[in-house]
């Protein structure tokens, strides 16, 4: 049975596109048929992060408007054969998408894929609402800072009211993905603590991805971090999160715990540095 999963946040730049590409790749690496759909019309990024920018011919808007057939717009990943990308249009604006058209494309994708990962644009406007509209599962990407947490709370409210599932009284699974988590800064009290974020948002935790230069390196070479550097901590966090999405129970390790041990070993100097 296919699952439509929106990756959303409200706030911009928190790691939605990075997480869509990495979770999508990790699911595909586990043998699932996956398509990652870029809903950020006008500001597309996913093609770059997945290293497919030169292969874009048709895009989501073309398919929604009937100018191209779905297979013409789908781009198959060169590294993982069960991973596909449906790019956004860079030249059009968000009004080019209609709910009816998006619904039709999603229904067609459901016939071909196990996972349809929707990379949402930032904000709470039409683009973000269309990206979440047909979702069965939501991954709420949050950074450990108050503004991001509040925006996530707002988005959760919208997931509970503006999605098709919410309107028909069906359950929509919601998961929290904490990204750009800086263990050192959390220890110093410069960032919000995991437990405080969980208490405020009151949805289950899917994973914690640490702030890491490996993520930037990977996206600069156009490869999700789970493919480019599978042994890195960030890749392992995404791989574990993907396994949890597939229903496996994998323990979550909080980067702060390690740092807690470090500062316990080194005392105050470690935190004062």
């Amino acid at each position: 049975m296919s699952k439509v999963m929106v990756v959303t946040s409200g706030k911009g730049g928190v790691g939605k596109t990075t997480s869509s590409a990495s979770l999508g790749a990790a699911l595909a690496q586990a043998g699932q048929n996956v398509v990652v759909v870029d809903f950020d019309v006008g500001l597309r990024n996913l093609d770059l992060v997945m290293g497919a920018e030169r292969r874009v011919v048709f895009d989501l808007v073309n398919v929604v408007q009937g100018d191209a057939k779905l297979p013409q717009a789908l781009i198959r990943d060169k590294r993982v054969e069960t991973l596909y990308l449906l790019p956004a249009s860079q030249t059009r604006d968000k009004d080019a998408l209609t709910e009816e058209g998006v619904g039709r494309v999603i229904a067609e994708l459901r016939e071909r894929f196990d996972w349809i990962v929707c990379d949402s644009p930032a904000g709470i406007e039409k683009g973000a609402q269309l990206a979440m509209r047909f979702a069965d599962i939501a991954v709420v990407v949050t950074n450990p800072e108050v503004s991001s947490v509040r925006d996530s709370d707002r988005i959760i409210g919208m997931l509970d009211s503006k999605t098709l599932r919410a309107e028909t009284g069906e359950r929509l699974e919601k998961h929290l993905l904490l990204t750009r988590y800086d263990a050192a800064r959390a220890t110093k009290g410069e960032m919000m603590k995991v437990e405080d974020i969980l208490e405020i948002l009151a949805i289950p935790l899917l994973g914690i991805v640490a702030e890491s230069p490996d993520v930037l390196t990977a996206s600069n070479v156009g490869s999700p971090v789970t493919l480019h550097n599978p042994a890195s901590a960030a890749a392992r966090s995404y791989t574990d999160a993907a396994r949890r999405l597939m229903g496996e129970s994998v323990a979550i390790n909080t980067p702060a715990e390690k740092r807690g041990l470090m500062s316990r070993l080194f005392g105050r100097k470690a935190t004062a540095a």
Partner: protein
Amino acid sequence: MAVETLAAPHVTLRGRTFMALVVAPEFPMAEWFSAFDQQMHGAGGFFIDRPIVADLGATLEEGGPDAVFIVLEGLEARQLRLIGVEGVDPVLLAGTRWERLPKTLHGRVQTLETWADLHAAPHDEPSPAPVAAPSVSSLLIDRPVRSGQSIVFEDGDITIIGPVASGAEVIAGGSIHIYGALRGRAIAGLRAGDSARIFCRKLEAELVGVDRLYRTAEHWGEALHGRSVQVMCDRGALRLSAFD
């Protein structure tokens, strides 16, 4: 029981309708406006886009018609959404740019809905007979109230099982019971007045208000932060007290 009693504020609010709040400027005006500015500033966006009705009865009585226009200009300059005036004779505003603001005469309670009706419907149409309000007197919400959401229940109490997020608001005709953290705003007593109370498991609120009194976070001490608290009116002041 830890008790913190707060002095009465200069500026009071009165809920009238779903969203409109009534402000009643008082002399000396300079002082009233500076207190109002301070409270607007401290209220974390509470007044932005919120419909405001100005009760100019006291202004007119003490300062005469000239004062009414000065006060209206003063409110306008603060970019409030002034949607109505009360306490003044409509004749006074005739020919001014405030002429079209809905006016309520001398204490008659008029709701947003009724003036919306008055203004929408042609005058010769008979107004519909009042429909008896359903006798539901409490509203139960058994999920978190998320940022940006607004729960308004004029007919009675609201009970919420779960947290009320920062940036969310709960407005009740009666009391408000929150089995969770209150991080946003809660305003009780729109109908019940000063007998209404607010109860919450954990006080981290931006603003609490009962009847005509309200407080923003900076007005209560660290001592109450994070605690299980009730908010009530006590001889004209808002009192916050911890349960534990």
